[in-house]
């Protein structure tokens, strides 16, 4: 097959999602040389060197942007590499992803930022590294945020931990303003979380598993909102889990704080009653909280308090999960189920409009981290996902492309299947092929 033929793609008869305008319309879309050349009701092109996709009954959306991913590269490549993570992302319709700095070594120097960017090239997926806020994620010394920005870091985070030292956090906030990059904050108070395995509530009591109070999240979010109010920094609270977080952030936004937030698909999909299975894939941080928090998160998506949905893709070896609940690692993979899990819980179950959900999976996060993506418009880079939203399937361990298989969604019935992923104008994933 001539590789040139992939340079021209005509997608016909699909439902095109314009997440920015908030509408969905029928139309044809023509891609040439990596760019969206045209979008119209009907496009007819008489050319043999063209790939035609009949998207009748399918949904055409901007390639997804996942702003919270752990690629484990460098250092823990037996769990995931930049290449394997990119393959998994593309299978999930994700064409841009933001990766966290808690690798080994930690992404706290310009050379490591450049390493990730270099390794990300030619994977078919656009990969944007976040650099550490403190050296080695130790919460002691501020990183060289200026040089890291120049090397290509698109934001700063100590993800996996919160900076416990409040004065240091305040100085990080003040200094970050010089570079205009967001601080992506994992919020946790260690003294409340250190022995904890799941949400502290009715089910932790019943199951005899040590609990993590909502206070672990809420106290730190409250602190950082106060610090952001004084410093004027741009902060983004990642993977919020509590109803309190939704309320505080909603209020902070009306108070004029420069704050955004995201939620994971698994925190939207599950609540702590699912932990009765003792399934270690549901052991995540922050913990999956109760049905009241789940409802508040879904409302936060509906009313616009929440700006992005993420996977918090966290690959672990079988030996890290096939063990007792206490010893198991925290985290679930999520790149390949991000769209389906979000669509299933929000649109199928809760009847929210898909155009809004698509925004939280595209232009929402892209705007937060200041990257291109999430928009379908003439003249834009052709990053596109073609999905069959009504296709239902049961998630199976053996179907994952990620190097790790620790998915909380194994055994769940989800709706929304990626049929094609197009990145930079090339078909990089096609359902049924490898």
């Amino acid at each position: 097959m001539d590789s040139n033929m992939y340079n021209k793609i005509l997608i016909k008869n699909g439902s095109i999602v314009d997440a920015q305008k908030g509408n969905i319309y029928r139309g044809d879309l023509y891609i040439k040389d990596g760019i969206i050349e045209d979008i119209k009701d009907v496009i007819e092109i008489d050319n043999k060197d063209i790939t035609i996709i009949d998207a009748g009954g399918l949904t055409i959306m901007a390639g997804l942007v996942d702003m919270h991913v752990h690629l484990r590269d460098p250092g823990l490549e037996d769990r995931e590499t930049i290449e394997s993570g990119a393959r998994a992302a593309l299978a999930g319709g994700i064409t841009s992803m933001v990766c966290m700095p808690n690798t080994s070594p930690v992404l706290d120097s310009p050379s490591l930022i450049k390493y990730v960017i270099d390794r990300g090239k030619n994977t078919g997926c656009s990969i944007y590294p976040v650099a550490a806020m403190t050296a080695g994620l130790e919460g002691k010394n501020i990183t060289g945020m200026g040089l890291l920005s120049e090397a290509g870091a698109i934001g700063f985070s100590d993800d996996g931990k919160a900076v416990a030292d409040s004065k240091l956090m305040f100085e990080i906030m003040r200094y970050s303003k010089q570079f205009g990059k967001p601080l992506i904050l994992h919020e946790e108070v260690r003294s409340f979380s250190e022995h904890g395995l799941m949400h502290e509530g009715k089910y932790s009591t019943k199951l005899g598993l040590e609990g993590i109070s909502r206070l672990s999240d809420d106290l730190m979010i409250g602190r950082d909102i106060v610090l952001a109010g004084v410093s004027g920094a741009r902060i983004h609270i990642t993977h919020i889990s509590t109803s309190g977080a939704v309320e505080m952030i909603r209020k902070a936004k009306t108070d004029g704080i420069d704050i955004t937030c995201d939620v994971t698909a698994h925190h939207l999909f599950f609540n702590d009653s699912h932990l009765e299975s003792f399934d270690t894939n549901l052991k995540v941080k922050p913990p999956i909280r109760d049905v009241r928090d789940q409802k508040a998160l879904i409302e936060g998506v509906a009313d616009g308090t929440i700006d992005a949905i993420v996977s918090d893709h966290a690959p672990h070896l079988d030996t890290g999960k096939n063990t007792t609940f206490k010893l198991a690692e925290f985290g679930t993979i999520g790149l390949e189920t991000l769209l389906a899990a979000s669509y299933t819980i929000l649109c199928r179950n809760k009847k929210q409009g898909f155009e809004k959900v698509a925004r939280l999976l595209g232009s929402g996060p892209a705007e937060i981290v200041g990257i291109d993506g999430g928009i379908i418009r003439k003249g834009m880079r052709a990053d596109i996902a073609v999905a069959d939203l009504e296709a239902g399937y049961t998630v199976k361990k053996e179907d994952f492309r990620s190097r790790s298989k620790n998915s909380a969604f194994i055994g769940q019935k989800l709706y929304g299947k990626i049929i094609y992923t197009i990145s930079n104008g090339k078909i990089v994933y096609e359902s049924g092929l490898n």
Partner: protein
Amino acid sequence: MLNKKSILRIDDLTLDDVAKVMETADSFTSISKREIKKVPTLRGKTVVNLFFEPSTRTKTSFEVAAKRLSADMINFAASSSSLKKGESIMDTLRTILAMQVNLIVIRHSDSGTVKMVDDNTPVPVINAGDGKHQHPTQALLDLYAIRSRFEKFEGLRVAFVGDFLDSRVARSGTRLFEKMGMDVSLVAPSMLIPEDHSDLNVYSSIDDVIEDIDVLYMLRMQFERQDRKFYPSVREYNRFLSLDSKRLARMKKNSIVMHPGPVNRGIEISDEVMGDRESPYDNILIEEQVTGGVAVRMALLYLILG
């Protein structure tokens, strides 16, 4: 026969199951009183005690129960140092299954591990305690002891006193006793109860309940534990949560006192109440719990394997 092959938690048992266990235990109680304390019922069956956490009482109780039924009992000593990781638990399990055993009795320090073992084995499993989760055979033997002193369970007032947070005994006991129609409450300070305890009546001092209850269930308090730093002192414990002879004297006629053992003398129960060789008070049921425990475990082995 019970409704499920394994006993992992109290919720696995129906009321009918509980009644069967009690009645079957009665017949085994009489065997244990004979000169020759052995019947051939489970001859040729192999039972494994797989204990990943130190235990004397429960392990011995199962061993005595199995031997009185003529089953072959193997104690698999799982040293904790070589078994730090779960995959080794699964490897250990594979080894044991390869020996073609008929039933596994298991204890592990991590909640949920017994379920993981049960999910991966075709033979029945009895939970002899998993972390802070459940200890269903303890709850059954406690119920058996209560049954020896009261005509019926409905309406009995029970109070669990002490460390509910870390207690698998209390988690199993509260569920079983409520299932039997008893009125269950908890006496504990804020740091020894879970944040969400909406299902339970909670009192802060033993004095709040001592005159009204039928069953006083004292839980073990382990001050040496690392996360115990939030409870002030033994003196404070004695003031609000301990049983001494003065409090004992205020209890209702025919009321009873229980403890899963081993008792921390001077913490949960005073020395004088415990006595030297036996308690001077006939409403202290601690030894009866142990004796009945053998009969209850014989009943479970019989109902599962017989």
